[in-house]
């Protein structure tokens, strides 16, 4: 079963074609990689899937529903969550609040019952708090729940961003360079962590990464973009030996 499919996705910014004619598939429970040199259009693909950019042409199917021109918050509600390349936490708020806010979209209390703190609302809020604490516990951030999110060390901030995305109860998680800025030890831990959340939360993952060890270690299938064009796809073994990929990354021998 395919959970996400893009058909001939194209994104043009004026005269520049950032992504051209991209077709990719994410199977259920799959961990799929999206790699390519800087400026290849990887983050643009994420921005199209999450509704931040409206594609010039092509469409995106999620669970067999066309989500191409939906608003970002609607797409999140449908079950796609993401993290950002340059961490975007709610800086001034606590770790727990960061995760609790991600539950706001599933809260079906109206504004007045929330401000009046009706018993019904309080019960729901307590449920969200419990759920958020549980999630923090699962990702190993429970002891930092009252810390301001920016006070966390870098690697933990990345983890919190993933936890916050998980709190929206996604079916598909988009990770934008989760290993960026991590040391080798943290990267190895991250690989295990990604596999673990896939199994525990029963979701599919599409990830952008420059760290080849991480990509080759966790991804089952990899797409390679260069100048917005898909130049290769396949399992890690195939990609490592693909001449086009080697050329894109290292250049070609004279």
């Amino acid at each position, binding site marked *: 079963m395919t959970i996400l499919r893009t058909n001939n996705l194209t994104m043009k910014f004026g005269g520049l074609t950032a992504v051209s004619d991209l077709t990719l598939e994410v199977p259920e429970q799959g961990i799929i990689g999206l790699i390519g040199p800087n400026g290849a259009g990887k983050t643009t693909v994420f921005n199209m899937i999450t509704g*931040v950019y409206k594609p010039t042409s092509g469409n995106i199917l999620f669970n067999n529903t066309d989500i191409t021109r939906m608003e970002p918050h609607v797409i*999140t*509600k449908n079950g796609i969550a993401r993290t950002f390349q340059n961490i975007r936490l*709610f800086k001034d708020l606590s770790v727990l609040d960061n995760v609790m806010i*991600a539950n*706001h979209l599933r809260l079906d209390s109206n504004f007045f019952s929330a*401000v*009046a703190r009706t018993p019904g609302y309080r019960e729901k809020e307590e449920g969200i708090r419990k759920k958020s604490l549980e999630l923090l516990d699962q990702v190993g951030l429970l002891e930092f729940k009252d810390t301001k999110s920016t006070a966390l060390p870098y690697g933990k901030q990345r983890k919190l961003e993933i936890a916050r*995305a998980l709190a*929206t109860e996604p079916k598909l998680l988009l990770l934008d360079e989760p290993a960026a800025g991590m040391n080798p030890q943290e990267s190895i831990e991250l690989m295990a962590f990604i596999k673990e959340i896939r199994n525990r939360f029963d979701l599919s993952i599409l990830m952008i990464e420059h760290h080849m060890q991480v990509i080759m270690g966790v991804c089952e299938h990899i797409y390679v973009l260069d100048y917005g064009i898909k130049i290769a796809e396949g399992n890690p073994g195939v990609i490592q030996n693909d001449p086009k990929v080697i050329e894109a990354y290292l250049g070609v021998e004279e």
Partner: protein
Amino acid sequence: MIDKKNIIRLGLILLVLAVLTILNNTMGKYEIRILNLAGIYIILGLSLNVINGFTGLFSLGHAGFMAIGAYTSSLLTMSVIQKESNFFVEPIVPWLANVQIGFLPALLFGGILAAVLGAMIAAPILKLTDDYLAIATLGFSEIIRVIFTNTQSLTNGALGIKGLTRYTTVHYTWGIAILTILFMFSLRKSSYGKALMAIREDQTAAEAMGINLFKHKLLAFTIGSFFAGIGGGLLAHLMGTIDPLMFRFLLTFNVLLIVVLGGIGSISGTVISAIVVTIMLEWLRFLDGVIDLGFMTIQGIPGLRMVLFSLLLMVVIIFKQNGLMGRDEITIDSLGGFFARFRKKEA
């Protein structure tokens, strides 16, 4: 459920009410007027704080929303005779001529109308951010003022409305101010309040977390203009006179000054700063008059005290950008912590 914190909260409110009652019975007319103004500025400061502080939208349109509330409630509380004597250039529109309702419902109505119009104004301009939003809201506020100047048969135009019954008392201003404070704390604690703060912290991330930006920004504007409308109504019935010139940018500036000095986003900071600024605005009036320095006499320069406030604002923005409280709050817990530390020092 009765817990210790709620009892302390109730105790604090009763204490404030007791102090206010004593002040109300012992102070002169002039001091009571200042007390009333302080209450009103608390409401106004907190209402702007929802938009500028919680949600991080830079709005400068507050005077416009206050004008809507002030005019609506005034027109509703005026008696038929008051209306006749005011509207002598052009008679008032017939559907308003014979309407007169109580002060409290009139205030509420003013707030609701301000909220509805606030939402209608905000809806088309919410795509804008930062200074662009500030300019657009400022423009709308001026538009409201100009419309009110030219609708002779509805607002009496530039002549304004005079001789309003002065319904506003300390009970009304501080009663509503306390309710506003409670509302703000509850909002801040609720899921909706946190969603607003998420938008302030990072709009892109908030949207990616499923928060409907448009809906929540509109919510902030609606709440802000509702309380601005109520504050405007209270102000009108304290002054007894309103005219369109009252609702110029300077009024928005006063409220903005309170919020910035108190700490943008802090409820307690705004409350403290509203009280301090209101008292200072009155106390510094001597600056506007003739000042005898002994060796020389400065002739009265009207507006000199505002120069001082502008300087103060500049100093705060340069040296203490977060204002008095930053985004922190004085809560029962923090008070408890403060006293515990205090006791330790004594021991």
